[in-house]
């Protein structure tokens, strides 16, 4: 998979500047970096949610994207999940895996933050995509729900063979989930590193990040 280079500027300030890069299909990439490093903007650009200032649409594939802020539409949880596909059996299986079965008939507006994130993940996984972009999918979840979500994402990736990008603030989650870590700093791709080589970062910037977040 080749991602075409792109840039994005807000109010004259370049927030993302990515070079063209080649990625391997069927892998899980964790995108890490400090606040304001451009992680969310990068996935929005790659997913085609926002238009880059330069470059064309970076990927011509069937893309699924879960934003940082998931939305509960004014209908029950089951209908929300089935907005993205009419396979009721798949919806039931996903709901069960995410512990949402008891909430299916409930209005989605009444869900807590963690429940909403679980519902949004189920809704996204109703379809098979070539590439998945997940922007902090477990940020609002407790430990149990996070574990269930991670298992579900991995299971989905194995079954569909899709490429997954997960934005995360948790280095532990990146280690558990990903094959490769992409480190962003001030909108630039500062380093790419296989997850099993995180003990030997190439740049000082990434080393400092790993020391701080890994502790």
């Amino acid at each position, binding site marked *: 998979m080749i991602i075409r280079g792109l840039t994005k500027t807000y109010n004259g300030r370049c927030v993302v500047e990515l070079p063209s890069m080649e990625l391997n299909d069927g892998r899980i990439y964790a995108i890490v970096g400090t606040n304001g490093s451009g992680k969310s903007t990068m996935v*929005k650009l790659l*997913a*085609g*949610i926002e238009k880059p200032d330069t470059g064309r649409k970076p990927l011509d594939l*069937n*893309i*699924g*994207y*879960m*934003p940082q*802020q*998931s*939305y509960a*539409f*004014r*209908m029950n949880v089951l209908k929300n999940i089935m*907005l*993205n596909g009419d396979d009721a059996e798949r919806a039931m299986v996903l709901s069960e895996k995410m512990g949402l079965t008891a909430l299916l008939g409930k*209005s989605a*507006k*009444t869900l807590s933050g963690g429940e909403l994130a679980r519902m*949004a993940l189920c*809704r*996204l996984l109703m*379809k098979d*995509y070539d590439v998945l*972009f997940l922007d902090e999918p477990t940020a609002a979840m407790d430990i149990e729900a996070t574990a269930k979500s991670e298992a579900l994402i991995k299971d989905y990736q194995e079954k569909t063979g899709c490429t997954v990008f997960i934005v995360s603030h948790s280095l532990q989650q990146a280690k558990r989930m990903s094959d490769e870590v992409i480190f962003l700093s001030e909108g630039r791709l500062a380093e790419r590193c296989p997850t099993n080589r995180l003990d030997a970062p190439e740049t000082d910037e990434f080393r400092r990040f790993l020391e701080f977040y890994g502790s």
Partner: protein
Amino acid sequence: MQTALEKAIELIASGNAELINILNVTAIMTLSSSVLALLIGVPLGVFLGASRFPGRKALIVVNRTLMGMPPVVCGLIFYILFSGVGPFRAAHLLFTVKIMIIAQVVLITPIVAGTMEPYVEGICTTIKENTRGLGLGRGKSFFLLCNECVYQVFSSYLLGFSRSIAEVGCVAMVGGAISWKTNVMTTAIMEYTNKGSFSIGIALGLILLAIALLINILLSLIQRRASR
């Protein structure tokens, strides 16, 4: 005061013909103008809230200015346009219910659009991100956005309706408050108070207050329902 109140209740209970006529004219003017304002204001508000184009912010400022337009200024503009010296004098609309409806539509539409716009803007980006992220088509995304706005549409309509029914300056200028023709509740209250005939004024005031109470109850129910 007590006698006037008793007489007012008696007028309402007996279905006084003049009172019924005033209520009828008020209902025609208020319902027509608020529905027309809804039909124009809702799409306008959704467009301003959901779209991004050069000049959008200027349009929003213009709309917010119009939301606060003094009714008498609106009445004055329509009076000049449709009076004997105005460009639309041939339409012979001055002092008719039609011109009252048109003037009210001009007054209320910015209110409907102005209450829809920030609501739509508030939810639009998140909805767009979620629906695009799922790969849903534009039609389905638009339907979902509209579905989220249903209760806001009711609220905006009721705001427009309450402004229309309580308005006096504009309708008095363009309608002339002619008895049995263009006299609505608010103008009638003024007229009868000036004449010293308080009972019919109190009767109309009681009905207006009852309608205001009903609208507030409806708004509360809508807000409670929308939050569920």
